[in-house]
């Protein structure tokens, strides 16, 4: 596991250097094309400034922006004992120094994400739909996947790569648009200089069109790789790959509309691609591997849950080179465990009703049980301190609201 984390860090640094080189080169080429050879370094400086600005914004409050953009509500042990306990179990299994903060997103689409640049400042968020549909083992699998992202420092990587990608896209867009509307500045009117300028312009145009595409493909490929590795990490932490496989299967079959709060930037953070089919053209432009493939790999892990077992299953299913860094491929002898007791007896109807209740709870509804056994759900804007039971007409006093 630690070998993997180290390999991940190394890969992140290589990627950063590569993308930084692309960014600086792009700045140089565009600067030269705009205003002659002397302006090349001005272009580099402008590119660096844009990158710096974007970094500053996302480091100042990147995770908080994501959480508040998805209307996430923080919960504690008393609100959601099971969810909180499962997160704590995975925190213990991963040996994290601090308990991550736990959030619920009031949305019926089943999904989850983790944010925070270091294990000390991590948060885990799940949607109400996910909580309502999954049993304990499945929820554990999903949380373990998110915990692996935290443990592998994937969030830092996704943030850094996203900033770099954003800068490259931004600079290219600005250049292409100014070319389109302004037609460039024609300072050189004759001779060799004009030829050189035209050539430079063509190079710059090509670079501005190709660089963002290349950077994006690279980014997507690495994001998919991190998803596989987080699956492998989840299997290893829970000792039970079937839990995550079942969860993914349920999520894939789910008919609810796509998550309202997701967008292109935040998509790589989620456990499954928050965009439903139709938006993605092919595997190459997707931040996540196909769910069916992830499920098949997890179910192919016969006999063990180490990274080596995952890597073997991956090769069996995809017939591609393994995604697991060689350093992490030591054979570990860890056996699978069995399904927990309550996972075997599942009541779907009850769970579907829970989704609505969880969303109400998060939105400040008060739950009361009448003496006749009826459960009352009182909305937060209800005025008055008593409520009449619709079935037995008994009046029940509302608990005094905090706040």
């Amino acid at each position, binding site marked *: *596991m*630690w070998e993997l984390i180290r390999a991940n860090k190394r890969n992140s640094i290589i990627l950063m250097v590569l993308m930084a080189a692309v960014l600086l080169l792009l700045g140089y080429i565009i600067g030269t094309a705009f205003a002659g050879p002397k302006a090349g370094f001005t272009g580099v400086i402008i590119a660096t400034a844009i990158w710096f600005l974007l970094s500053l914004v996302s480091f100042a409050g990147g995770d908080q922006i994501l959480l508040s953009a998805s209307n996430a509500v923080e919960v504690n042990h008393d609100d959601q*004992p*099971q969810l909180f*306990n*499962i997160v*704590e*179990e*995975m925190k*213990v*299994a*991963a*040996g994290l120094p601090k308990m991550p903060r736990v959030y619920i997103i009031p949305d019926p689409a089943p999904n989850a994400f983790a944010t925070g640049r270091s294990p000390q400042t991590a948060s885990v968020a799940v949607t109400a739909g996910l909580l309502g549909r999954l049993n*304990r083992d499945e929820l554990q699998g999903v949380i373990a996947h998110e915990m692996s992202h935290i443990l592998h420092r994937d969030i830092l990587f996704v943030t850094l790569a996203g900033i770099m990608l954003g800068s490259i896209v931004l600079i290219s867009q600005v250049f292409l648009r100014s070319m389109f509307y302004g037609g460039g500045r024609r300072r050189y009117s004759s001779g060799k200089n004009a030829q050189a300028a035209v050539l430079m312009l063509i190079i710059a145009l090509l670079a501005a069109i190709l660089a963002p595409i290349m950077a994006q493909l690279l980014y997507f490929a690495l994001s998919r790789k991190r998803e596989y590795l987080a699956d492998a990490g989840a299997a290893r*932490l829970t*000792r039970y790959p079937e839990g995550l496989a079942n969860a993914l299967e349920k999520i894939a079959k789910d008919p609810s509309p796509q998550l309202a709060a997701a967008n292109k930037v935040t998509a790589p953070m989620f456990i499954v691609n928050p965009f439903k089919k139709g938006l993605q053209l092919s595997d190459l432009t997707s931040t996540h591997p196909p769910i069916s493939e992830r499920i098949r790999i997890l179910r192919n892990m016969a006999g063990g849950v180490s990274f080596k077992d995952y890597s073997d299953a991956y090769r069996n299913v995809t017939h591609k080179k393994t995604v697991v860094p060689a350093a992490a491929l030591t054979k*570990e002898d860890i*056996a*699978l*465990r*069995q399904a*927990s*007791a*309550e996972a075997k007896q599942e009541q779907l109807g009850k769970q579907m009703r829970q989704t609505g209740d969880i969303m109400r709870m998060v939105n400040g509804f008060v739950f009361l049980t009448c003496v006749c056994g009826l459960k009352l759900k009182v909305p937060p804007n209800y005025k008055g301190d008593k409520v009449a039971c619709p079935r037995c007409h008994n009046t029940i006093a509302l608990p005094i609201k905090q706040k």
Partner: protein
Amino acid sequence: MVGLIIVGVVIVLLVLFIIGIYNSLIGLRNQVDNAWSQIDVQLKRRHDLIPNLIETTKGYMQHERGTFEAITNARSQAMGAKTVAESAKAEGVLGEALSKFMLVVENYPDLKANQNFLALHEELTSTENKISFARQNYNDQVLFFNNKIQMFPSNVVAGMFSFSKRDFFQVEGAEERQVPKVSF
């Protein structure tokens, strides 16, 4: 003169290298110790939950005196354990008593519908999970630490400062380790 400088540089680099490895070994050993104390934290939580559990279920399960006694005895044994081996054994017995208790509960539908009991049941399930995850994490840390001590070049430094290998946490009884085979 040049030769002297080269020798000096090599010595400085070597010392820095040894310091680096020594510090990482200390860090790893602290992680192992921390992982061990995490197990204790979870075991303590298990002990704390048991009186609550008995209090909640006593009214429903009047005819199960034997089960209650088994748990109470196992708990006091576990809490009084002095050595690691003693504690491991007593905790094993307690864990078994608890899972037997949960099987008995299946015969009491009233109890299973009780909100307090459901909340306790979740806490107990989670605590049992946390105990096994804490042990799992401890074993992971020990494996990494032991590997470091045995592998070159850190084994040289480990030998110099006499770092010793740590023991894995073994689950009592072989039957607990093996996944039961299901036949159709």
